[in-house]
């Protein structure tokens, strides 16, 4: 894929209400570059705000706002209607990790039915829109307003859970590697059925880093192995940006990744070592998937 060949028109218009350096802005623009005939379904979350203040809309694609837990079901209804009418559409649910928590049964149900929809969970690892509360995907030891001493539970591995629904397409992506995300969206759009992409979206105010560093932090997550890019389309593979970190190089930038974020302020060295062990375990799991789903 050549960047110069990407469509120049953006589905997200400038002057929208996103925060400075917002990862969702990056992801949403990439979504528009990747797909045509988009219909966006947006449950409560940051993107509710980003969508604009009435009567102005930030998106130049159709958008249906929906209650928090309902998104994948509303999308199922839209997809059914378009199928009935013979209308070509990419019905895309764009939700945060909050939507994936509260709407998990809905998400799981849509996956079980293999609904013809694309779900992107843009994961900024906390409920940012309500003011940085801990979520199912908040990183271990990360401070939020509801885990002021650092989250004591593990980050939920949403993408592998969705993979176990035996749907045709599941991938992880990162706002630090937009060409990879765009390619994944394009491959997903060529497949019928339920497609799921878990997009890692570092959040400047939520993680407490400077707004200029969103892409940099996202890349550090990948380089430290804390976020692994992979893809399943019948075959499981570690994606190109993550490949160099399959073995010895991995782990070098972990301290850099952790220390760059205010949410880990005061973290103990032994906790960083524990994170390193967790990362090793996750890699072993993913590499075993690569063995299993060849």
């Amino acid at each position, binding site marked *: 894929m050549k*960047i*110069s060949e*990407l469509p*120049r028109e*953006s589905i*997200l*218009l*400038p*002057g*929208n*209400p*996103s925060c*400075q*350096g*917002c*990862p*969702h*802005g*990056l992801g949403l*623009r*990439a979504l528009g570059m990747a797909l045509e005939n988009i219909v966006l379904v947006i449950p409560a979350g940051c993107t509710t705000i980003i*969508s*604009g*203040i*009435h*009567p*102005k*809309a*930030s*998106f*130049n694609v159709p958008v249906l706002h929906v209650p928090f837990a309902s998104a994948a079901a509303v999308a199922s209804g839209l997809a059914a209607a378009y199928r009935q009418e013979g209308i070509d559409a990419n019905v895309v649910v764009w939700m945060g990790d909050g939507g994936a928590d509260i709407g998990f049964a809905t998400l799981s149900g849509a996956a079980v039915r293999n609904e013809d929809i694309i779900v992107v969970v843009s994961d900024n690892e906390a409920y940012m829109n309500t003011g940085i509360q801990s979520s199912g995907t908040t990183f271990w030891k990360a401070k939020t307003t509801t885990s002021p001493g650092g989250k004591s539970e593990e980050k939920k591995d949403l993408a592998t859970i969705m993979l176990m629904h035996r749907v045709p397409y599941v991938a992880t992506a990162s706002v630090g590697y*937009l*060409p990879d995300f765009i390619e994944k969206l394009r491959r997903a759009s060529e497949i019928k059925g339920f497609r799921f992409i878990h997009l890692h979206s570092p959040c*400047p105010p939520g993680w407490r880093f*400077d*707004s*200029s*560093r*969103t*892409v*940099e932090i996202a890349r550090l997550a990948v380089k430290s192995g804390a976020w692994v890019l992979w893809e399943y389309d019948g075959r499981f593979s570690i994606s190109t940006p993550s490949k160099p970190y399959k073995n010895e190089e991995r782990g070098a930038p972990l301290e850099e990744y952790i220390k760059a974020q205010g949410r880990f302020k005061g973290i103990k060295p032994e906790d960083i070592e524990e994170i390193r062990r967790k990362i090793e375990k996750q890699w072993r799991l993913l590499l075993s998937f690569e063995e299993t789903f060849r």
Partner: protein
Amino acid sequence: MLKIDCLLAKPSKGSAGKTGLWRTFKPIYNPEKCNHCLLCWLYCPENAIEVNDEEVKIDYEYCKGCGICAKICPKKALEMEEEE
């Protein structure tokens, strides 16, 4: 008799107003250093950068000054300067 305008919003720039006013730092473009790699365009979360073959144009009316473009530019053709 549905007041449809109250329910339907239409696409428009500046749905949050002139977001350029949020800026503390401002990206300044130096065409001599630019290699037209388009990374600044791709990674602008705001869609406030327009590129063509000749140059990079920043929409200062809406650019929020996040600074991602300056960080991502491999040639330092964009640099952040404090607003006056």
